[in-house]
């Protein structure tokens, strides 16, 4: 269930981050707003105090309904005789400097009522604004009295920020709506956002998680069946879209190779059993006859020769198996192909001549490749020996090296097209060569060596559709 868990975890992490981000934003905005309000209060206080100082006396009256000035800040005065001008309670003047007060602590009851009415009006207007925001409000006066266009809930607990100090022989107090109202509101908004976002985030996360999980489960189940021996099974979809498909395709590739080598292995075992019977039967025969024959020495020698054949077959099988099982490329070093070709040509030219054949060699633009020198030598030697053995007297054999392409062509009877891929299998032999020496391992060895070097091996007809041409193309780089 890891994909599902991951999706849920990711969704939750996203939500947590969103919440933290929202709270931080809230904090920053609140702080900013508070500073701004305080600055406005201080400025207004200074302005009014200057004006009062200039006139030298307090005004006779401050209208209660005029809660706010144009700047969004209202003010009240406490005269020396103890009379309050403005809609404010007497107690609000007690502390000098900044303070935060509830509406009930700051305003006289009738002023509070007026305020509530104003807020109701603002709310109505805000609703209408929502419908036609371009049109100016129905009660522009009232709205403008507030001085700013932030909407807020009238039920919200309004904290008021005040600033008071001594002016003339009395005290001056300025007030403005505090930030706590907006702060509370913003937190609420963020909370709502988080809740609204969390549901789709979780749902989308779940959908992706479940889909990924299902595909992984399918691959897992398929893999179990492959492990149980069902090597025909393929897991990848036709179109590769993402990493999971890629993984499935890789598993398919591995299964295919496994299937191929399993098939080869079982063919191989059957062939070994079949082909070893011949030399073993001959060996038995010689040992049987040696007992009472006059030419004991001859039988003994023949038996040893048969035994050597069997040992050679086993040796070759062992080498092929090792090459196939542990793809050891540790011993690889730069090998000059031209030098190998020259050396092998030198070795076999005389051998071919003695068999009544001609071995020629052509090298052009030869490359140096990363390879196991002795194995490359064996590959080429096997191809040439194969040609010498099967091409017949009078045939000509040509080694051709051009760049990274190495080929051996003979003018012998060739191999029928249908059997060309099979002759690369260990111990496979054409019917007509059943009676010639050899165990059918030469080409299989060539194949194993080519595979180890990741070289391409191709069998084709020679020039004029006669004979056999075996081509080995070593990879670049």
């Amino acid at each position, binding site marked *: 269930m890891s994909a599902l868990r991951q999706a849920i975890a990711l969704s939750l992490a996203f939500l947590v981050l969103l919440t933290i981000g929202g709270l931080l934003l809230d904090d920053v905005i609140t702080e900013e707003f508070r500073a701004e309000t305080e600055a406005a209060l201080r400025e207004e206080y200074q302005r009014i105090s200057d004006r009062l100082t200039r006139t030298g006396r307090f005004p006779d009256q401050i209208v209660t309904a005029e809660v706010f000035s144009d700047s969004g800040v209202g003010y009240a005065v406490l005269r020396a005789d103890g009379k309050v001008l403005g809609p404010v309670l007497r107690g609000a003047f007690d502390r000098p400097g900044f303070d935060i007060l509830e509406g009930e602590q700051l305003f006289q009851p009738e002023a509070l009522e007026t305020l509530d009415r104003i807020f109701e009006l603002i709310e109505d207007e805000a609703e209408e604004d929502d419908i036609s925001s371009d049109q100016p409000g129905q009660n522009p006066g009232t709205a403008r009295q507030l001085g700013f266009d932030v909407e807020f809930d009238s039920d919200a607990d309004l904290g008021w920020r005040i600033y008071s100090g001594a002016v003339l022989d009395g005290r001056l107090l300025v007030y403005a709506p505090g930030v706590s109202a907006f702060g509370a509101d913003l937190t609420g908004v963020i909370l709502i956002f988080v809740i609204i976002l969390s549901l789709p985030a979780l749902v989308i996360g779940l959908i992706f998680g479940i889909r990924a999980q299902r595909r992984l489960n399918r691959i897992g189940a398929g893999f179990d069946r492959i492990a149980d021996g069902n090597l025909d099974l393929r897991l990848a979809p036709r179109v590769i879209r993402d990493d999971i498909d890629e993984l499935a395709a890789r598993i398919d590739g591995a299964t295919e190779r496994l299937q191929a080598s399993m098939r080869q292995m079982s063919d191989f075992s059957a062939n070994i059993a079949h082909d070893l019977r011949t030399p073993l039967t001959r060996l038995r025969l010689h040992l049987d006859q040696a007992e009472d024959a006059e030419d004991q020495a001859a039988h003994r020698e023949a038996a*040893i020769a048969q035994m050597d054949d069997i040992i050679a077959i086993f040796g070759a099988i062992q*080498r092929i198996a090792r090459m196939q099982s542990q793809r050891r490329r540790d011993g690889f070093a730069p090998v000059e192909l031209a030098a190998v070709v020259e050396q092998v040509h030198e070795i076999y030219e005389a051998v071919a001549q003695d068999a009544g054949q001609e071995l020629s060699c052509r090298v052009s633009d030869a490359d140096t490749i990363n390879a196991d020198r*002795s194995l490359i030598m064996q590959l080429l030697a096997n191809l040439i020996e194969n040609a010498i053995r099967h091409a017949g007297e009078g045939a000509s054999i040509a080694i051709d090296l051009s760049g990274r392409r190495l080929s051996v062509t003979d003018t012998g009877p060739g191999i029928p097209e249908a059997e060309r891929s099979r002759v690369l299998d260990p111990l496979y032999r054409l019917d007509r060569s059943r009676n010639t020496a050899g165990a059918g391992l030469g080409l299989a060895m060539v194949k194993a060596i080519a595979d180890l070097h990741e070289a391409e091996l191709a069998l084709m007809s020679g020039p004029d559709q006669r004979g056999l041409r075996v081509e080995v193309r070593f990879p670049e780089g």
Partner: protein
Amino acid sequence: MRILLLEDDPEIGTWTVKGLMAAGHVVDWIENGREALLAATTRDYDVLIFDRMTPDLDGLSALKTLRSARIATPLILLTALGAVEDRVEGLEAGADDYLSKPFAMSELLARITALGRRGRAEAAEMTTRLFHRGLELDLLSQTCTCNGQTVLLNPKEFRLLEVLMRSKGRIQTRAMLLERVWDINFDPATSVVETHMSRLRNKIEKPFGTEFIKTVRGSGYMFLD
């Protein structure tokens, strides 16, 4: 020669000891790697023959221990694994030669003789001229003369003759010649050695009516002393 044989299989051991003694060698046969290591460090041998897989301590580890103790007695490693990598591993560990099972007694004897003489032959390696009964090889100019007449040999024929002359009087098996002359570590299915040998003999023996090289049936070739 004094030979130490490390081999845990009783049948192969008996057969090997018998073959070596028949050839005139003195053999100590030990079946356990640890004891063989002890014997090799405390007693004096001309050649050591170690099987790779032995109880207590395997032959390869015993060999490595010997070499790290700076004991340089020539050693032949025997093994049931014949792949090239095993060969390389054995030789890198300090073996002087390598023989995969099953092997012919003649092959083992030839290799032991070659190894036993190596110490003494080392000085002769420096020579630039090989000479025997009118046949002369100049290793610097790569020329061959017989009774003063120049014989044209191709490089591989020259090398073949050089190897044979250096091991005068000792058998060189087919496998040894393939390794030393042609650098081939596998068993070719065609008669590579025979072909080249007959060509060489046609050049140095036929025209002069002398027999230099003897074919040892079932074993290999020998340059007559």
